[in-house]
């Protein structure tokens, strides 16, 4: 199978989607931020000039516009930029889009996709480094996808665009250069299917987004010490594939959860709670969370590194639970 980068797979998905579905329009549409990969988007803009719309700096305004457009028959893909900027759009996405189908008793669907770059990108400081996925997960009515591989980003984006529900695409700038195998042609990966990214018998590491990459790096290191780590990637938080996670914990009896949200009430907290409620009997050791510490994200690298989840912190956590 051919091997391409995450950014290439993403752009390829967008090209196929824009070609196949006239209802899709792109609002914002930088996707790769200021990274060199933005050239891929420039090509798409040239290919589909009538489908890209550059809105004013008005996150609530243009996200709301996309929500209204989705209600009225379009399938907009909105690029917010940094996940922190998404806070500006919460009233329109969390209070309108997420509630609409329910509140109208199933009369109106909101098939829109909201893309953003979450997490610690390096030097982003407190206002450009948020991981809003836990807050979003606490808002019923939103689907949440967090791809971590080239194959997944393409397959999940295809599903997101066809979904009749508002979907938040929580992306990470540090994934753009990740390489991996991608099938030729059109394919979609259904939501709610976790993937075992690496099989192992000693400990389950559930990781999301960039942390899947970090967990796989940690597993590589730990294998040298004879510890076999199973890395499970939920790929979507809503819907969540509990079965695969619980099956893995049943197999290994040990659990570390890695996610870039702040620690309190984060994604890791919820995943650990699910295992505590539904898989407690399988556990042979206390569980561990590896997350961003509960402080705003500092600018300076030594402090940033101190608070962020990392390969080393995952290794330490795994060593503690297998002790």
């Amino acid at each position: 199978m051919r091997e391409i980068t995450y950014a290439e797979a993403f752009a390829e998905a967008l090209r196929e989607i824009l070609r196949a579905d006239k209802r899709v329009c792109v609002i914002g549409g930088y996707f790769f931020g200021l990274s060199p990969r933005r050239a891929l988007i420039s090509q798409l803009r040239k290919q589909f000039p009538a489908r890209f719309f550059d809105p004013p700096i008005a996150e609530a305004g243009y996200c709301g516009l996309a929500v209204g457009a989705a209600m009225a028959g379009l399938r907009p893909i909105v690029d917010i930029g940094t996940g922190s900027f998404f806070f500006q759009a919460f009233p329109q996405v969390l209070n309108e889009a997420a509630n609409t189908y329910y509140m109208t008793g199933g009369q109106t669907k909101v098939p829109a996709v909201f893309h953003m770059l979450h997490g610690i990108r390096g030097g982003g400081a407190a206002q450009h480094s948020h991981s809003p996925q836990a807050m979003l997960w606490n808002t019923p009515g939103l689907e949440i996808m967090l791809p971590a591989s080239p194959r997944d980003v393409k397959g999940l984006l295809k599903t997101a665009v066809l979904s009749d529900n508002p979907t938040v695409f929580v992306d990470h700038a540090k994934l753009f250069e990740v390489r991996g195998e991608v099938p030729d042609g059109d394919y979609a990966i259904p939501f709610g299917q976790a993937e075992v990214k690496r099989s192992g018998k000693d400990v389950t590491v559930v990781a999301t987004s960039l942390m899947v990459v970090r967990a796989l790096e940690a597993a590589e290191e730990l294998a040298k010490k004879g510890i076999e780590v199973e890395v499970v990637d939920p790929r979507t938080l809503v819907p969540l594939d509990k079965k695969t996670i619980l099956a893995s914990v049943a197999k290994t009896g040990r659990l570390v959860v890695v996610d870039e949200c702040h620690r309190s009430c984060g994604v890791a907290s919820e995943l650990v709670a699910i295992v505590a409620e539904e898989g407690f009997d399988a556990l042979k050791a206390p569980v561990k969370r590896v997350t961003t510490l509960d402080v705003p994200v500092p600018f300076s690298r030594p402090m940033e590194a101190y608070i962020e989840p990392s390969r080393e912190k995952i290794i330490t956590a795994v060593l503690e639970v297998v002790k």
Partner: protein
Amino acid sequence: MLPKLPREKLLDLYKTMLVMRRFEEALIKLTKSGISVGHFHVYIGQECTGGPALSLLGPHDAVFTTHRNHGHLLARGADPGRLMAEILGKATGYNKGKGGTLHTTVRELGFLTTSGIVGGVIPLATGAAFAAKQRKTDGASMCLFGDGALEEGVFHESLNLAALWSLPVIYLCENNSLGALGQKAGEYSSSTIAARSLLDLATPYGIPAVSVDGTDAGAVHQAVQKALARARKGQSPTFIEAKTFRWPGSRPIWPELLTGETDLKLAWDLKAIPKKYSDWYKKKDGLLRFTRELLKSGRATPEQILEADRAARTQIERAVRFAQESPEPKPEAALEDVFA
């Protein structure tokens, strides 16, 4: 003045406005009888805005409204029974009891969603206009909101977008703060805005803006007709301010039938007008004004007016009965409709 319409259409519009009025009066009476519907807002006194404005929309047009939505839905022809059932939280309600008074929505009449967040629908309506333009449906989007929504940031963000992208949207602001004292007096809130004229908030974006007397059905009809033509032909937005007086019964935090159930005879029997709130009956109640205009122009006789009113009352009585006799939703239905 009366809208420029044939007599039959004028009488249809009048009948709709009577239904709008009698519905709200019946709702207030229901809540006084001990039925709780949560905090609610009535449309009394604004019929001459919503009635003619919404009568002009076509099947491809989208409409967005707010917490003060009952009148708008009825103006588009919603079934008062299913509307009342929704307000009472019944399974037969338009939203299956999931929306209530704040969110009543009738998709088949063009209402895509109804937001209880002040200003919440302004970007949504702008987006529906964007979709109409992209899909070349010839549809327009009408956004109804109160003067309070102008205090929200999304109003300005949306007008900027609508102007930049020339979107076929009509922002119809129903300014019902005239004569209101607001929170300082312990009343329901009113405008808190620095601009001297509400139009000044739209014109900097290059959006044509016009102010009309919201109790003058003809003026509203004309303004909306122009705005719709601009939306359909030129695909560009319009801002309309419809000025209405706050109905005395909407001044308290919870609506009260302070002027009683509307007595249409006051339209022609000026001697019968009570002293208290006499200004309301004489000048500020658009429905009485419309009634007088019908009589004066010879389009209707007092007997025909009363006959139309009897029909409206009967329709509302039936609607209330339907809503009250409707079943409650099954509790576990709470888990349905989260995702499509």
